[in-house]
């Protein structure tokens, strides 16, 4: 709805702000090169190493994984970012001192089953939800 002149002004303002974003983006990119992007890391919980074979029948352990890394601009699709995480990143760019970056956290979690003896030598097979990280993302 803006007039031609106004439009041009807007465009020029927009290009300026885009430049600053790009500059910041470059700076962010260079910093995220040093630090790691948000991703899934391997973490194995070993019941065997805990010395629990006398009561845990199965499994010997399980791959739990964990999420770690930076949620920096630009949040690419592989980071599995929420819409709000993208907005949060932009607000962080504007006010980095006061607004934190989005958090790198699990977006999908899976269950595991554990088979173990109780004190009375009864056997329990229990499904534990949200134990294994299937995917990480920026929240």
């Amino acid at each position, binding site marked *: 709805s803006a007039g031609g002149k106004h439009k041009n002004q807007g465009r020029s303002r927009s290009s300026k702000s885009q430049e600053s974003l790009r500059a910041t983006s470059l700076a962010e990119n260079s910093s995220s090169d040093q630090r790691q992007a948000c991703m899934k890391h391997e973490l194995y919980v070993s019941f065997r190493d805990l010395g629990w074979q006398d009561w845990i029948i199965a499994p010997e352990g399980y791959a739990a994984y964990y999420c770690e890394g930076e949620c920096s601009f630009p949040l690419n699709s592989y980071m599995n970012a929420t819409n709000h995480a993208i907005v949060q990143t932009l607000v962080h760019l504007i006010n980095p001192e006061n607004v934190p970056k989005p958090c790198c956290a699990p977006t999908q979690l899976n269950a595991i089953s554990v088979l173990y003896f109780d004190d*009375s030598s*009864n056997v329990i097979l229990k*499904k534990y939800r949200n134990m294994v990280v299937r995917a990480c993302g920026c929240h």
Partner: protein
Amino acid sequence: SLTTDNGIHSSFIYGRLKSQERREMQREILSILGLPHRPRPHLHGKHNSAPMFMLDLYNSMLMEEAGGYSYPYKALFTTQGPPLARLHDSTFLSDADMVMSFVNLVEYDMEIFHQRRHHREFRFDLSKIPEGEAVTAAEFRIYKDYTRERFVNETFQITIYQVLEENTESESDLFPLDTRTIWAAEEGWLVFDITATSNHWVVNPNNNLGLQLFVQTTTGQSVNPKMAGLIGRLGPQNKQPFMVAFFKATEVHIRSTR
């Protein structure tokens, strides 16, 4: 070492924890598993019938999760002979949040001959069921061996009763739960539905007076369960009778603040 494989960042950290840190970590993982302390089972024979049955269930659940293939519940426990009778399809297994097997607490097989009737007793402690779990199905399982002493085409009627009241002077008050007719030559696991009884015992633990099993010939003559090939305390460990119950969580487990 740091390697990237299929988008998963692998970072193996080899560190030695102090004993205090190790205890803390164990405590945290026990808390995740919903356990107040590390269980200390007095018997942990993994080759006993109940742990082996439970391991079969565990493996079938893993197969289902891995490939979407639903392992038929009726085919379970074939390592120790086929099930002679079954009650359920596999849906209640996939719906279960927890499955628990219970050891028989009767120390000795008393092939009791009372008022011209042989019987065998079984007791299970259902007081250790975690809170917020409701019984959706329960089974009593007993192994029937091939009996050479009997005629191949001879049949037996096996009946399971819930003990309502124990009487020292006379026979206990009993409630019939389930009956099976089997051939003498048959071999495998007999499965009896005790769902209603289990629910009753969970709600009223004082009424848990156990089960009694009776065997009769076709002519109505009482027979010692051993003569019908039913495995008892003196039989192999992997053929001992046990009880199994399937549970569905009725409430969300919330870990307490520590």
